[in-house]
């Protein structure tokens, strides 16, 4: 296979200028969603999915990298490396 074509790298300033409005609108979507839950009759507070959302929001605000991957793993069932033995499959 031929050598990889070069990837163009945008600067952080460029990305922010290009995508600020998009990110702003997504934060507003989330904020309005949380307001909607708050206003609604009943309470979802105790549901496991609410805890997942809260933990997901914490990932967005912490100082670590790989946020998309970490949110994905947060929302994933665990993988057990011994699954084949448990299923009796080889």
């Amino acid at each position: 296979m031929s050598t990889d074509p070069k990837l163009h790298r945008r600067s952080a300033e460029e990305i922010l200028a290009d995508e600020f409005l998009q990110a702003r609108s997504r934060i507003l979507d989330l904020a309005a969603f949380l307001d909607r839950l708050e206003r609604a009759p009943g309470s979802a507070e105790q549901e496991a999915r609410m805890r997942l959302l809260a933990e997901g929001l914490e990932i967005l605000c912490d100082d670590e990298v790989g946020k998309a991957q970490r949110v994905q793993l947060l929302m994933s069932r665990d993988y057990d490396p011994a699954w084949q033995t448990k299923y009796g499959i080889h």
Partner: protein
Amino acid sequence: MEYIDPHIHMVSRTTDDYETLARMGCVAMSEPAFWAGFDRGSVESFRDYFRQLTQFEPKRAAQFGIKHYTWLCINAKEAENVSLSREVIAMIPEFLSAPNVLGIGEIGLNKNTKNESTIFLEHVDLAVKYNQQILIHTPHLEDKYQGTRMILDMLMGDSRIDRSRVLVDHVEEHTIQAVLENGFWAGMTLYPVTKCTPQRAADMIERYGPERLMANSAGDWGPSKPTAIPDLIMELKRRGHSRELIRRVVYDNPVAFFSQSRQFLPLENS
């Protein structure tokens, strides 16, 4: 820009969709066998489905100058029915020499059960026996990480498998690395809500580079967008990527992967 959609379910789409795709630059596609939205009752339903995939769809696509290829299997959802699955697997060889069949797919896991795993391994065995390429479906949402790891365990536990002839589809941020670093091809599915957006797919291309990486729409009977690849092309252009880079992902890579199947014919470049 000309492109190839390596994963799209055209039996669920209209002829108007073929026309739209052709207008947007789609020159070839491959259609893995999958779930119809309901469980089929007998092996005869699958025989008819495979006739549709190997005889009828290529003609419909050809009306718009699109080359239609396909992959055969019983999908992970119906694989829960082990006896039906075995009947289907036994029947598949009848169709393997049809001129548009690239291999076995989309096989994989859905809820990551024992039955699904058993039938996955039997499909892999069929592919090896008939020297077929493999296209793999990884589960969605919370099942994806676990299921992808299980699939990689099964593939890497079989020394007969040539990893460069296996495409693992529906990769996302938490599964792409394991697929690529173990030598498989990876496909990103652009699908509303449950899978990946053009922006996130572009991020993965920027992060991992274009080698062995493809994008598809997985357009089907559900909420999906058959024209999702042109959306990705637009996003990559917007970010300033070269024509060469974009073409590598949406055209050259599918050609390189498909060319490992003897049924794949070179496309006429315009």
